[in-house]
């Protein structure tokens, strides 16, 4: 069986970043449950390219490779800091520049970080609907890490393992991701289009 791939997208802005830390914890737990090649992506590295993509309509080469890695992966871990009651603008911009079908059916684990646990439901009210709209298969457990959680590791570890297990099971249940070639010879002939 071919090895699965897991794309891990972090929209953290600091270096080091607690958002990246949570993403890494989720990735480690997921690969412990299901061996997979991990492609770690820091959206911060693509901030300028994402702005260019919004303006020109195409992704510069480095961003294009990242988009291909995410859309071609068997599973996705997506972690954002919570800003003003929602995902960060950088996080949203990345998912805005994907083709709208790009994540259809893809198992996704969502996570978020913030200063206090008061913002935790932003995952359910903002991040989950985004992936529902994109028709991804978001696993039931979403993981929020507040600053205080990094001190009380027992509870966070439990949630990380629960969510990662769900993601691993969802990836394992699906055949490996296949990329469709939009420039392949068309399945329907032009005569059929004419008479449709």
């Amino acid at each position, binding site marked *: 069986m071919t090895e699965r791939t897991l794309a891990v997208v972090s929209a953290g802005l600091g270096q080091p970043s607690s958002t990246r830390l949570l993403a890494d914890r989720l990735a480690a737990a997921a690969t412990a449950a299901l061996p997979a090649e991990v492609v770690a992506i820091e959206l911060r590295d693509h901030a300028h390219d994402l*702005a*260019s993509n*919004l*303006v*020109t*309509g*195409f992704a*510069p*080469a480095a961003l*294009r490779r990242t988009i291909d890695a995410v859309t071609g992966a068997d599973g996705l871990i997506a972690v954002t800091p919570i800003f003003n009651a929602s995902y960060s603008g950088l996080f949203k911009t990345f998912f805005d520049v994907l083709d709208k079908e790009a994540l259809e059916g893809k198992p996704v684990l969502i996570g978020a970080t913030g200063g206090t646990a008061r913002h935790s439901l932003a995952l359910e009210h903002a991040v989950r609907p985004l992936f529902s709209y994109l028709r991804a298969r978001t696993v039931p457990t979403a993981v929020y890490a507040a600053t205080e959680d990094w001190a009380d590791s027992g509870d966070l570890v439990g949630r990380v393992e629960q969510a990662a297990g769900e993601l691993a099971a969802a990836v394992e249940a699906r055949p490996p991701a296949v990329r469709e070639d*939009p*420039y*392949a*010879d*068309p399945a329907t002939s*032009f005569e059929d*289009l*004419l008479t*449709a």
Partner: protein
Amino acid sequence: MQFGIFTVGDVTTDPTNGRTPSEAERIKAMVAIALKAEEVGLDVFATGEHHNPPFVPSSPTTMLGYIAARTERLILSTSTTLITTNDPVKIAEDYAMLQHLADGRVDLMMGRGNTGPVYPWFGKDIRDGIPLAIENYHLLRRLWREDVVDWEGKYRTPLQSFTSTPRPLDGVPPFVWHGSIRSPQIAEQAAYYGDGFFANNIFWPKEHFIQLIDLYRRRFEHYGHGQADQAYVGLGGQVFMRRNSQDAVNEFRPYFDNAPVYGHGPSLEEFTEETPLTVGSPQQVIDRTLSFRDSFGDYQRQLFLMDHAGLPLKTVLEQLDILGEEVVPVLRKEFEALRPAHVPATAPTHAQLVKEATR
């Protein structure tokens, strides 16, 4: 190969002095640019068709008819004609009329428009974009090729015993290109009819267009119009030149940085790396343009975008002098030397189509 220019016809403020031309100035500038194209030895002038400000060319055949009267060799074309929202009956008649006035110096490029709202402005639905392009074009071909047409379709009233007038010059319809930046269906449509395919590659990276053009070439062969490398391919280009390349960069940068299409996004350096935009010396433009052949194969038409982003008319005319005097003569020679004998040098001209029809 045929070399020419294509224009969007945008009214844009010159970012270096804040001056905005009036519509009248811009329209007259487009005409001056077309006349200059003939003067410096280019082959083609193509105008966009747009129905929203800040663009002025809503009525291409009015403009091209006027240019036809003031030129002798220039091929008049479009970039693009909206096959989705124009009535195919009116396209058939307008461009046949233009053929007569221009003694056959006419071809056109089909496209689907630059903005969603153009569909409702003309009573159409954007969700029907591709089906409209397919049905309307099929009717347009029949109107040009059959004197009396009975027709019924989904998107316009039926026709009974209808004759579009005037009939095409010498009974030969103009050659048609299909322009697309992303739709494989349009590449398929061009291939099905053995028409030309124009990939407007100027704003996006080449990898995408290699795939799109390869699809068109494969399907052109599949439908029996010739070998894949004999299909008619057109490409865009975008250049700004000065003798000293750093002068070109310095002069063009404010126009680039504020351009409506890509301004305030990537840097000039990033954009020249990713797209065909070339800002530099005439030799750099020659080298870059020749490299298109390595990516896309031998092709038949090269159109440059020269007048946009608020560049003043005087500058555009200087650019056309450089293009016509220093760049295109070299490109003609080099491309022609590389072209295998079985590959057509150009898309069919009116004279060639007449010859084929009488054979």
